[in-house]
Structures are given as structure tokens and as C-alpha cells.
């Protein structure tokens, strides 16, 4: 396994009496897209603020690029680009001028502004005032600012929050391209499971300040007890009989589909074959989205009990 880019060890964090983070351990592999998943108020943003030293950690709790955050703050922040929650943008300045403010602080050459504008596809609107920007453009401008120093690590807090579907897709493509084409490690938080699922190579799930799962995305899928197979077809009643005849249970039926809990992916072709043999037309078989959602819900719900 490649060297971890972020290591968090036994991190506790309090807001007065309230324990926001409870013995958090995280290891983010270099080169990954790391999805940091949890419901609202779980401690995601708190963790991110600690990674950026907006909230101070104690010595030896956080290491980034193998170095202790509190000791090497400037050096580490110089290699991180961050986008935290709602965009931080000077509305009275144009997109380009916003980048110029940050460029002056980090001291990179002026030509870098055009490069990052190109990456986030904001060249055409760069000289418009930021107050006329859509939320999607604001987010992309924020990302451009984060990219100015050509950082090795990008920390993005809910980057698709509040965006419309096309904005979400655009942001997702951007993140994937930054990872694949520009070789950046991306630490990404979200409360939307399907979002992480489409992007991440590694995930961690946090709830009420505790890490409940950390590992490969595939590992999380395997962790589930089974799958839910949704079959779209005609002749629903006849199909239900056929499926029951194969010793499966049908958990849900409606006018054009069945939901069948299965234990193994190899059950899918078996069921499909049986249905087709019966002369039933199968339009769609779907086993991915919902089961991960239920695993996520199961994992985060356990703590409530």
C-alpha cells in the first residue's frame, strides 16, 4: 500500500462539554479519492477544520505528508488546497481578481491564474464580478483558488452541496480529472452516499464523532449482509410465483417491478434465466444503489441503539 498522505490518531475534540470527535483514527492513502461520509452534524466539517488548522489539534494527533501538523503548519498548508462548505468569495471582485488576492498571499507566478481558470473551465467568466456568479461557478472559483499552489492534496468539504444536477456532474468530472490527470489526492466529505459511491476509491463513515468504517469502497459493499435486487418486468404476479418457486422471498411488489433480497451476486443471472424461461420480459435488473444506502443507514443507525 502506498504511503498515507493523512494520518489522524486518537483525535478527540470538544466544543465546551460536547464531544464532537471521539478517538478518531483515519489513514488516507496517497493518490486516492477518499470519501468521508456521514450524516449532518457527524463531525465531518470539524475534522476538516482540524486538518486545515482552523481548529488546533494537539501534538502528534494529525500528520500530513508524514509531518506533524502543528510543527510544520506553513509548509503543510502550502501543499493543501481546500474548499470548505459555503464558498469564500469577495463578491465585489471579479473571479480573476479573487484569485489574484490569494495569488498574492501564496506567491505563485501570475500565469498560474490562467492555468487554474482553464482547469475549472471558468475562463469565459473570469472577468465577471463574482456577485453575478451562479453557485456552481462560485464553487468552481473556490476550487480554482484551492488549486493555485498546485497542491498535492485537495480537501473538499461537501463540494456539490446546493448544486443543480448539471453542476453536480460537472464538479464530479472535475474531481475525477484532478485525481486521474493531475495526480492529486482528494479528501472529500459528503452526506450523500450516491455521490461518494460514484467517485471514491476509499471511504470512511463517521457518525456522532466516531469512525464506524474505514477502508476500500468495495469492502463496504462486501460488508453488507446481502443485496436488494430490483427487477423491472411485465406480468408481475407470474414472476413473483416463479421467484418464490426458486426459494427466494419477494419483499416488495408493484405494478411493474419486484424487489428481491439476495445473498450473492450470482443469484442475479439465476433469477433472470428463470424469468426468461417462463416467457417473462425483463426490462431491467438493478442491484447497486439501494443496498449501499441500506448498509450506510444500518451502520449509522447502530449507534442510536
Amino acid at each position, binding site marked *: 500500500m502506498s504511503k498515507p498522505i493523512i494520518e489522524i490518531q486518537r483525535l478527540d475534540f470538544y466544543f465546551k462539554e460536547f464531544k464532537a470527535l471521539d478517538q478518531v483514527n483515519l489513514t488516507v492513502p496517497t493518490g486516492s479519492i477518499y470519501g468521508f461520509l456521514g450524516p449532518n452534524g457527524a463531525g465531518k466539517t470539524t475534522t476538516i*477544520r482540524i486538518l486545515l488548522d482552523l481548529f488546533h489539534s494537539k501534538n502528534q494527533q494529525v500528520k500530513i505528508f508524514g509531518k506533524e501538523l502543528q510543527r510544520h*503548519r*506553513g509548509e503543510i*498548508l502550502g501543499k493543501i488546497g481546500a474548499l470548505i462548505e459555503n464558498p469564500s468569495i469577495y463578491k465585489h471582485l471579479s473571479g480573476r481578481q479573487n484569485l489574484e488576492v490569494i495569488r498574492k*498571499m*501564496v506567491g505563485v507566478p501570475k500565469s498560474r491564474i490562467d492555468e487554474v481558470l482553464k482547469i475549472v473551465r471558468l475562463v469565459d467568466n473570469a472577468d465577471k464580478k463574482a456577485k453575478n456568479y451562479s453557485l456552481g461557478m462560485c464553487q468552481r472559483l473556490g476550487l480554482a483558488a484551492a488549486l493555485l*499552489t498546485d497542491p498535492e492534496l485537495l480537501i473538499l468539504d461537501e463540494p456539490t452541496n446546493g448544486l443543480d444536477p448539471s453542476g453536480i456532474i460537472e464538479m464530479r468530472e472535475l474531481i475525477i480529472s484532478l485525481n486521474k490527470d493531475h495526480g492529486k489526492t482528494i479528501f472529500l466529505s459528503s452526506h450523500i452516499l450516491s455521490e461518494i459511491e460514484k467517485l471514491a476509491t476509499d471511504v470512511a463513515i463517521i457518525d456522532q464523532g466516531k469512525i464506524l468504517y474505514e477502508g476500500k469502497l468495495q469492502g463496504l459493499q462486501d460488508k453488507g449482509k446481502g443485496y436488494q435486487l430490483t427487477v423491472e418486468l411485465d406480468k408481475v404476479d407470474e414472476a413473483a410465483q416463479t421467484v418464490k418457486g426458486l426459494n427466494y422471498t419477494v419483499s416488495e411488489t408493484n405494478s411493474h417491478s419486484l424487489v428481491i433480497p439476495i445473498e450473492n451476486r450470482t443469484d442475479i443471472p439465476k433469477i433472470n434465466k428463470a424469468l426468461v424461461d417462463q416467457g417473462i420480459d425483463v426490462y431491467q435488473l438493478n442491484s447497486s444503489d439501494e443496498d449501499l444506502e441500506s448498509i450506510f443507514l444500518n451502520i449509522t443507525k447502530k449507534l442510536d441503539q
Partner: protein
Amino acid sequence: MNLALELKRGISAELFKFRRTFVLWLLVLAPAFVPAINFIILFKKGDQIIQDGQNAWAVLLGNTIQPGNFLFPFFVMVIALFVNSIEHNSNTWKLIYTQPISRLATFLSKMKVFVLMIFFSLMLFAFFSLIVGYLLNVVKPELGFDQAFDKSLIFQACLKIFLASLGYAALQFALSQKSKNLMLSLGIGIGGVISVMILMNGWEYADYHPYGYHMFALRNVGPEDNMWAEMTTVYRSFIVATAVFALSGWDMVRKRIL
């Protein structure tokens, strides 16, 4: 990276972000306000205002410094608000404090820009007043602006106002940085000015009131007196400014930034 380089970067970023803002206009227009009124009054009624035997420049100096001294704290309040609200309003505290510049340097950059702004405006104020005198000499030579007068006095008086104002300026800066709520810093500032004006008519400790140092600093100073003989209130202003800026900076370095 050393602090000097960090400060250079921080200050140039800080100055750049005020582009196309009202603040820059305010820095130039506000100091023109009193001189403009002085010009109109002296142009129209100068012959009545300047008594026989009085030096016209001394009259102009008095009419400049008195209202200037009264209005300056309000100007300081507004500038302190502006330099901080630009971050409060655009949600950019977290942006500037995640850049690879130490927190101390980021704080000091903003603080220095604030102090420079009020200094610049006050010097501009002195300069505009000087222009008024020279202009009146051309358009109304009979007023007597050709008499000999040490013109540097007006700059000296403004410099002393500036130094004696640092105390409450630091307070206004710290309040505006700490709180998004502009009524808090404005309320305390206006309360400070009003209270000192009431207290200075009799309360024996009024001299210690930080919102009065700049007024006491020029008390009993005539054109013939040495401006720099009495420095007590200036030193008090320095002490307050040092303590408040240090506390505010210390708070910014350790606080949790949302």
C-alpha cells in the same frame, strides 16, 4: 518563510482586495470634507471670521483641527468596520487563515493596512487644508494668507492626533474583528466619544479615557507653543494600542475559525 516576506504578501493581498470598494473613495473623500467647507466659509465670510491682527493661517488651523479632531473617531470606526466586514460578509476568514502564511502574519497584515489607511487619510486631510490656504491666497488675497506661518504645524497637529488616536483605533479594530455585529462596535465607539465629551467637563479621571486622548493631546496648544512638549496622552494611547492589538492578535492566533 520569514515573517517579513509573509507580511509583504499579506499586505499586498490585503490592499488588493479593497479594489473597487467604497473604502478607497472614503479614504480620499472624507479628508476633503472639512477643508471643502472651510474653503466655502472663508471665501464667503472670511473678512468677518478673520479679525484684524489675526494670522489667517492660524484661523484656518483652528477651523481645521477642531472639527477634524471631533470627526476623526467616527472615521476610524467606519474604517475599522470596513477592513473587517469585508471578511465577515464574504465568509473569507477561513480562506485567508488556511493560506500558508502564519496566523500572526495574516493578523498583522490587516492591522497594518488599517493603521496605514487612517494615517494616510489624516495626512491627506492636512494636505487638503494647506491647499485651501494657498487657494484662498490666490482667489481672495485680502484675507491675508500671504502672512508668514509655519505650515508644518498643521501636519504636526495631525500627526499628534494620529498617535493619540491609536488607542481607541485598536479598540475599534479588535471589536470589529471579533464581532460580525456592526452595532456592537459602532455602539461602543459612539458611546466612547459621547461619554468622554461629557466626562471631560469635570471628571478628574477623564484624561484616562481612551476616546479622549486625541482631544487632550492638543488641549492648550496654540500656534506658538511646542506641539510635542506634553506627551502624556500620546503615551497612554500607545499603551492602550499595544495592549489591545496584542490581545486581539493573541486571540486570532489561538481561536477556532469558523
